[in-house]
């Protein structure tokens, strides 16, 4: 008991790592809460189309360019940036104040009339020119202009063609999502936050266990501490045992806090109502894996800086390969086949089943059970390796 208490005393003295990972978790939660709506739009959870902030500079000032701006303003927030200079516009684009900025060149209508692309509309979007805004707004602009050309081709005047295009163009055909009576297709902001925070949980808990709690184990592994203990009436295995117990206790506390957060914040969410038990078991097994990995890493790493390096490499590479940061459905088959040998793959696969609307992975009880079993086996196997290495170390010492 004395050793066990000493572990937590040391933990209290070296709490920087825990504070840092605590802050990262809180920041991630705030970021997820703030951007929940955007995440829903980006992954296509909502079948409703997103309205974009579109800006333009009209150098043509023709019937067609005005008609185009009018058409875009029907379903977007359109602003005329004619009074702003290039630097101001560049700032607006960089800061995402405008999602899509277009510059309509002088003589644009004449080019469209002639059917050539001498004077094209140049556009820019924040963080590069390939985004959902670039695709969506670009598609609308081209549809509008091609339709205008068709109306002109059948003999309508410029004014008539613009007006007719604006009246008849369809870009919002109805979309319905079909689900069985007991299934839901609605995803709330809480669902998005709960799903994503559970997606990030493996990365966070491994960092917390390894760099937060593992640092304390490193201190007890120091030669001076080991020498001091070896001359005391404490069996050699006791330090290792208390380290393991301390690590497990800390892991359980983290898991409990996370569970309380899940069930309090997501009280009304569909994920917690329908799959609360999956979240509970999955996060518990993930915590055990993180504890086992942390125990393994601290067995052969001697310094805090090396622990930081190895933990970052292990956690980030697993996070990218197993679908923590990038949805699993976007990762290539070969990469996923390799990821099956990593524990977080099964954690993420189980979490994906809690929200098929968000992950596009359907719930499968048999597959879920396999995930849990494999996670448990990983925890046991890694712990076993850590125990063997620790035993060898004790013998050596």
């Amino acid at each position: 008991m004395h050793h066990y208490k000493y572990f937590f005393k040391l933990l209290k003295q070296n709490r920087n790592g825990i504070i840092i990972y605590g802050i990262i978790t809180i920041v991630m939660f705030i970021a997820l809460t703030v951007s929940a709506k955007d995440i829903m739009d980006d992954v296509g959870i909502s079948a409703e189309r997103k309205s974009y902030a579109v800006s333009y500079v009209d150098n043509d000032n023709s019937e067609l360019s005005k008609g185009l701006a009018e058409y875009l303003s029907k379903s977007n927030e359109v602003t005329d940036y004619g009074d702003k200079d290039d630097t101001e516009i560049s700032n607006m684009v960089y800061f995402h104040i405008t999602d899509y900025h277009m510059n309509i060149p002088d003589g644009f209508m004449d080019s469209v009339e002639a059917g050539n692309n001498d004077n094209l509309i140049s556009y820019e979007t924040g963080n590069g020119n390939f985004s959902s805004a670039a695709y969506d707004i670009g598609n609308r602009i081209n549809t509008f202009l091609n339709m205008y050309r068709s109306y002109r081709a059948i003999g309508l005047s410029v004014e008539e063609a613009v007006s007719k295009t604006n009246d008849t163009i369809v870009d919002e055909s109805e979309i319905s999502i079909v689900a069985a009576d007991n299934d839901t297709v609605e995803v709330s902001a809480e669902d998005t936050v709960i799903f994503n925070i559970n997606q990030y949980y493996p990365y966070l808990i491994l960092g917390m266990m390894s760099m937060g709690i593992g640092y304390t184990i490193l201190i007890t592994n120091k030669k001076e501490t080991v020498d001091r203990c070896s001359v005391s009436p404490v069996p050699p295995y006791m330090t290792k045992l208390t380290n393991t117990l301390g690590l497990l206790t800390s892991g359980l506390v983290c898991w409990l806090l996370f569970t309380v957060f899940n069930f309090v914040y997501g009280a009304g969410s569909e994920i917690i109502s329908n799959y609360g038990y999956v979240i509970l078991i999955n996060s518990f097994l993930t915590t055990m894996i993180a504890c086992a990995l942390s125990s393994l890493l601290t067995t052969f790493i001697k310094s805090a800086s090396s622990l930081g390096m190895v933990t970052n490499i292990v956690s980030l590479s697993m996070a990218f390969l197993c679908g923590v940061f990038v949805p699993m459905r976007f990762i290539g088959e070969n990469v996923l086949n390799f990821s099956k040998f990593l524990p977080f793959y099964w954690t993420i696969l189980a979490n994906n089943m809690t929200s098929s609307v968000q992950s596009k992975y359907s719930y499968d009880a048999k597959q879920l059970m396999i995930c849990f079993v494999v996670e448990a086996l990983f925890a046991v196997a890694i712990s076993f390796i850590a125990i063997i290495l620790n035993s060898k170390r004790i013998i050596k010492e």
Partner: protein
Amino acid sequence: MFKYFLLDRLRNKTAVFWILIFPLALMICFTVAFGNLTSADDIDMKQTAVIRAGSNDMYYESFNSVLEELTKPGSNRDGALLFINEYEDEEAVIKALEEGDLDLAFKVYDDKIETLLPKDYSITACGVGKTIADTFMNNSKLINAALEVNPLEAQKLIQNIGESIDFLTAKKSDFVDESPNAYLWYYYSTFVMGILFNALSGVEMTGNIKADNGYHAMRVSVCSKKKIKLILTSYAALLTIALAVNVFQLFIMKTFLDVPLGTNITKLIAFVVSCNVFSIAFGTLCGCLLKGNSDSKCNKTTAIIMTSSFLSGEMVCQLPGLIESVCPIINDINPATIMNMAFFRLAYTTSDLDFYSNLIKIVALAVICLTASILLLRRERYASL
């Protein structure tokens, strides 16, 4: 003395990890994770079905003939775009959607098309369905209008209805080619973050000069050389390593990760040099002002860098815009925002004035930080030595 500081720094494995290995490891992770995103967008054949909900024969038949075209090989890059399944009635189609047997279905009314999707629909299925429905409805309206206004031209229109002109071009950029990778910005911001991590070298540099930071620093501080010479030589050594690391990273990015770096080498060099000058100077100031030993100062500086990166939109890209509308001064003084913005201007805008004005801002901040650190360091005396 330069060689001494150079070797001292190179032997620090932790520093080498954070400024060299960590950014490259992240970039490799991006390549592995994002490598399949483009192919994930490839459209494979979609299982579909049609439900008749109206009595307009012509509308229904026309729509079916459009779908028929899309079932032919060659309608998609890898073959046919659609496979049309036959079902007895609407109920059977709905059941097939619920059970995941169909990717999408179309419900044809008298003058509109509704797209039906299963609960776990894919974004491509949604896009394909919506595009087919929108295009058909638009063309149908267009043909009706043409038949009313000019039946002669209508025939010609029907023949050419599939022709479409692209009236858009992405703003010309030195970095981005015609088919930019949507995830390039992750590489660029990681590169910038790596440069910002050089601040840790600056912190450790002060740790090696401030005698209250250990025996190593004590030895340096009692040497006969002038303090300002010590500081500037150490600074030059750090800058040399940082620049060498950046050149290596840029080489890896360009050669192995296929990240475009533009053709304007002068601008790129100006950016890399000025940002490194700033980040090391920023680190030296942190090392002078923050309390504690070298490790503690490094941790605190890491926290500052992380906060700075977070506020610059590293995690939530809307954040700088939000700050700009509420308190723009934060963006004006945040190192990560200034550096990211300079890189954005280097990559995506052509105005030299904008780019160099940002660089001047960075260099001015570097001069302020370095001058302040020199003033603080050279005046320190240790009575106990």
